[in-house]
C-alpha cells in the first residue's frame, strides 16, 4: 500500500489504527506497512500516547438533582394549566379589541359631554386680570386715607 503520510491517502486509517478501531483487511495491510515505514511507525507511537492520555481524562459526576432541576425548567416552560393554555391564544385578540374600543372612544366628539373644563380654561386669564385689578384698586384705596391723615390740617 502507499504510505498514508507521504501520499496523504487514507490518512484517517492511521488514526483509527492507532486507536485500535481499524478492523479486518485494512488493519493487517497497515500493520505490514507500519512495520516497514519509520515515519508511520513514529506517527502511530505518538498518536497512541495522545490516545492513552485522553483516555485518562475523567469527568465529574452529575449533580444528584440534575433531573429534578431539568423537570422544574420544563414545568416552567410550559403553560401551567388547561385554563392558561386555553386563554393564552386569546390574549392578543383581547388586546386588539381593547385597542379598537379605546381608539373609538377617543375619537368621538366631546362637545356635549363635558364642556365645563374648556370654558374654565378660556375664562381663567380674565379672572386673573380682574383679580389683579381689584387688588390694585384696594391697595390704592388703603393708601389714600393714610396720606390724608398725615397732611396737616389747616387751622
Amino acid at each position, binding site marked *: 500500500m502507499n504510505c498514508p503520510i507521504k501520499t496523504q491517502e487514507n*490518512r*484517517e486509517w492511521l*488514526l483509527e489504527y492507532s*486507536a485500535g*478501531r481499524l478492523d479486518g483487511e485494512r488493519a493487517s495491510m497497515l500493520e505490514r506497512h507500519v512495520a516497514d515505514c519509520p515515519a508511520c511507525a513514529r506517527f502511530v*507511537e*505518538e*498518536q497512541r*500516547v*495522545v*490516545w*492513552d*492520555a*485522553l*483516555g*485518562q*481524562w*475523567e*469527568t*465529574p459526576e*452529575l*449533580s444528584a438533582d*440534575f*433531573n429534578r*432541576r*431539568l423537570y422544574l*425548567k*420544563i414545568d416552567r*416552560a410550559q403553560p401551567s394549566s388547561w385554563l392558561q393554555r386555553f386563554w393564552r391564544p386569546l390574549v392578543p385578540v383581547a388586546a386588539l379589541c381593547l385597542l379598537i374600543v379605546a381608539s373609538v372612544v377617543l375619537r368621538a366628539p366631546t362637545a356635549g359631554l363635558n364642556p365645563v373644563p374648556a370654558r374654565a380654561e378660556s375664562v381663567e386669564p380674565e379672572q386673573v386680570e380682574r383679580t389683579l385689578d381689584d387688588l390694585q384698586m384696594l391697595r390704592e384705596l388703603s393708601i389714600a386715607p393714610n396720606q390724608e391723615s398725615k397732611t396737616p390740617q389747616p387751622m
Partner: protein
Amino acid sequence: MPQWVKEDMGATSLAFDGDAELMLRVKDGDGASFALLLEKYRVSVAHFLYRMVQDQPVAEELAQEVFLRVYKSRESYEPTAKFTTWLYRIATHLALNWLRDGKNERGQERLDEVTEDGPVREVADRTPTVEHQMVRRVKLDEVRQAVAALPDKQRAAVLMHKYEEMDYSQIAKVLSCSESAVKSLLFRAYETLRVRLAHMA
C-alpha cells in the same frame, strides 16, 4: 448524489434508530419515552459539554438546556437524522456559542483555582498514594489544557471522535461540514496534541 437518494438512504438507516422512535413517542406526548432518552444520554452529553467548556456548573446548565430544547421542539421533531446527531448538534451549538461569547474566562479562572488550591495539592503526607495522585492530577491538567488550547471546532471534533466514538460522517453532520473537512480538523487537532503531549510517553 440526488437529494431523494440521500433522503432514501437516511430513511433506511433511521429505520433502526430506536432513539428516533422514542422521540416520536415523546412527540405524541409520552413523557416516559423522554425520561428514557434523558437517562440514556444525560451523562454522555454532560461529559461532552464538560470537556468542551471545562467548567462543571456551566456544563450542567448547558446539558439541561440541551434536554430542555429537545423537549420543547418535540412537536416539530422529524427523524431526518439519527437522534444522537440531532442531540449532539444542539449540544455542540450551545457549547460553541458559550465559548464564542467569551464566558469561558471565568471558567478558566475557576479551573486555575482548582489546580492551585484544590484539595489534591494540599499535601498532608508523602505516602506513595498521594504522590501518585499528584502526578496523575498534573498529567490530567496537561491533557485538559492541551484540549482547551485547541480551536473550538477541532476540540468538538476530537471529543466526538475519541469519547463518543462517532464516525467521520456523523461528526460531519453534527458540525454541518463535509467529511473531508472533519478529517482535516481531526488531523490538525491530533497533530497539535501529539506535540503538546509527547512528553507523556
